[in-house]
């Protein structure tokens, strides 16, 4: 390995400089406040978890995990998402009464980049988990909250695509007969390979009607009308439940008044085995990757020892900032330059101003070489130097 230069950082690790930090906190506050308004409680978990517990339960692929060993030889992971750690806490501590839990987080997660740069390996996610409520109302609530929070963050042009893994499974099982065959067809959806899907379907030993049903499935993308079309692909009632849930979800989101951003896409398969029902992704203009995703994951909490349903979403703060475009500059601070003679006066003035919520920088004038350059960055500059104008004795 070549010798590292002192300025280098590991692949995908990025610094957050003051201006970006400010923009990030604005977004984080806008979204976090909305979550709090809906009664979600923020919590934190450790950055390191056991590979065997959180590492394997997480939806993130093994090769994306940062692994290390502790002094006892256990494999640890830097948390790759927040959902698995929260499921761990919920199952072991918080779920004693089996009452619905509304939790929120904003934290860095870590995912190793194998291939190239252009993507951070550590990034902040802000999200919620709604645990122990299996109703569609819970799914509707998290989607409506997400829309509402994004609006609070001043994001305008975004869209949510909603799918249902239960529908995909039921339809495929109905037509193909075995889990295994359904699974291999689902894999094409997961890989977003529609060409391969069509070729695979054409090569199957099925009636032309069934083949057409599978080919038509790829068209299940659009507004509420998609659900009727989906219904027509099913036979004898089975698989209706998933569609009923989606219908109900639609009505719930309409009642929230947030349906404008919602579209259905029944071909959406975000993960091979993680989600168990309704799932969704959020997209924004000008960003090439989803800015967030979520859905129902009823099997995860079970891995930590409690059988209960859960749903939630996670937004990526970095991509959200990209979608928001121009960073809003923070209000510049005011500056008081002082010399020793009027130090006390300067301190008092600063205290008064800070008391009214103004940001104030106090700077000993002897510490600055180029005063013009220094004062340029501040909104209002006050000079308290020399002996003249003594006052404000307290």
């Amino acid at each position, binding site marked *: 390995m070549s010798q590292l230069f002192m300025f280098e950082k590991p692949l995908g690790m990025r610094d957050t400089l003051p201006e970006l930090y400010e923009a990030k906190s604005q977004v984080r506050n806008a979204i976090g406040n909305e979550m709090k308004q809906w009664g979600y409680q923020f919590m934190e978990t450790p950055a390191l978890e056991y590979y065997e517990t959180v590492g394997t339960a997480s939806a993130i692929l093994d090769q994306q995990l940062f692994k290390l060993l502790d002094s006892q030889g256990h494999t640890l992971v830097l948390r790759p998402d927040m959902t698995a750690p929260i499921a761990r806490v919920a199952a072991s501590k918080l779920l004693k009464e089996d009452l619905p839990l509304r939790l929120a987080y904003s934290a860095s997660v870590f995912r190793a980049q194998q291939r190239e740069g252009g993507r951070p390996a550590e990034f902040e996610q802000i999200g919620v988990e709604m645990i122990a409520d299996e109703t569609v109302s819970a799914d509707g609530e998290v989607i409506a909250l997400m829309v509402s929070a994004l609006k609070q963050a001043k994001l305008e042009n975004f*869209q949510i695509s909603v799918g249902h893994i239960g529908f995909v499974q039921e339809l495929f099982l109905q037509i193909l007969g075995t889990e295994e065959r359904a699974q291999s067809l689902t894999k094409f959806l997961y890989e*977003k390979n*529609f*060409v391969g899907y*069509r070729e695979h379907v054409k090569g199957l030993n099925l009636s032309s009607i069934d083949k057409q049903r599978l080919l038509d499935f790829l068209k299940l*993308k659009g507004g509420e009308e998609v659900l009727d079309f989906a219904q027509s692909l099913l036979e004898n009632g089975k698989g209706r439940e998933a569609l009923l849930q989606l219908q109900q979800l639609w009505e719930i989101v309409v009642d929230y008044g947030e349906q404008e951003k919602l579209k259905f896409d029944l071909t959406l398969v975000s993960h091979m085995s993680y989600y168990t029902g309704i799932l969704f*992704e959020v*997209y924004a203009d000008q*960003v*090439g990757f989803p800015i967030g995703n979520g859905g129902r994951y009823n099997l995860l909490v079970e891995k930590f020892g409690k059988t209960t349903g859960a749903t939630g979403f996670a937004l990526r703060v970095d991509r959200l900032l990209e979608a928001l475009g121009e960073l809003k500059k923070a209000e510049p601070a005011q500056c008081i330059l002082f010399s020793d003679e009027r130090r006390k006066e300067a301190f008092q003035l600063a205290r008064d101003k800070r008391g009214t919520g103004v940001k104030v920088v106090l700077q000993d004038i002897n510490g600055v070489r180029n005063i013009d350059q220094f004062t340029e960055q501040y909104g209002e500059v006050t000079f308290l130097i020399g002996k003249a104008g003594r006052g404000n004795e307290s």
Partner: protein
Amino acid sequence: MKEMITIAMPKGRIFEEAADLLRQAGYELPPEFEDSRKLIIDVVEERFRFILAKPMDVATYVEHGVADLGIAGKDVMLEEERDVYELLDLQISKCYLAVAGLPGTRMNDVAPKIATKYPNVAARYFREQGEQVEIIKLNGSIELAPLIGLSDRIVDIVSTGRTLVENGLVEYERIVDITSRLIVNPVSYRMKDERINELVDRLTSVTQEGVKAR
């Protein structure tokens, strides 16, 4: 006004076939389209922006979302495994990936060496055959490798087979058939769905796949 769509096109051989296909689908492209040396070509009337990229890089531009759509060979898709939608088989630029080498030779028993532009595809193929091989990545003129003893076999694209014959090589195994695909960024696929659906419909009707589906 319709929104602008950015399409990543592969430079070289596939480019002309892809441009022909777009014209067949009823899109008005300027006559000098193919002769330009520009890397970015705006076709304002159709609200298209074309970017001209190395074939191997098309999927990268689309994955990162700087191009909404792209035309990429299946070889690129297999090698790069980018997170993009592969929507349509355009049935152009047909060829295949094959294993080739000097006639009548066997692979080295201890450490068989394979030279290729497609290290991922080659490694996966031989692993599936139950063979562990050592991959040597080259960027072009792959046929040289077995001729001068760099490798036992090569994995490369074969369209007519002439290059192999002229260099005294023979094909040993055919790995997979290749055609060009229409690929789409997952976000564009949702955010610009109207324009993309229209393009897909029009292209479907002029490709073989469309003929068979009807």
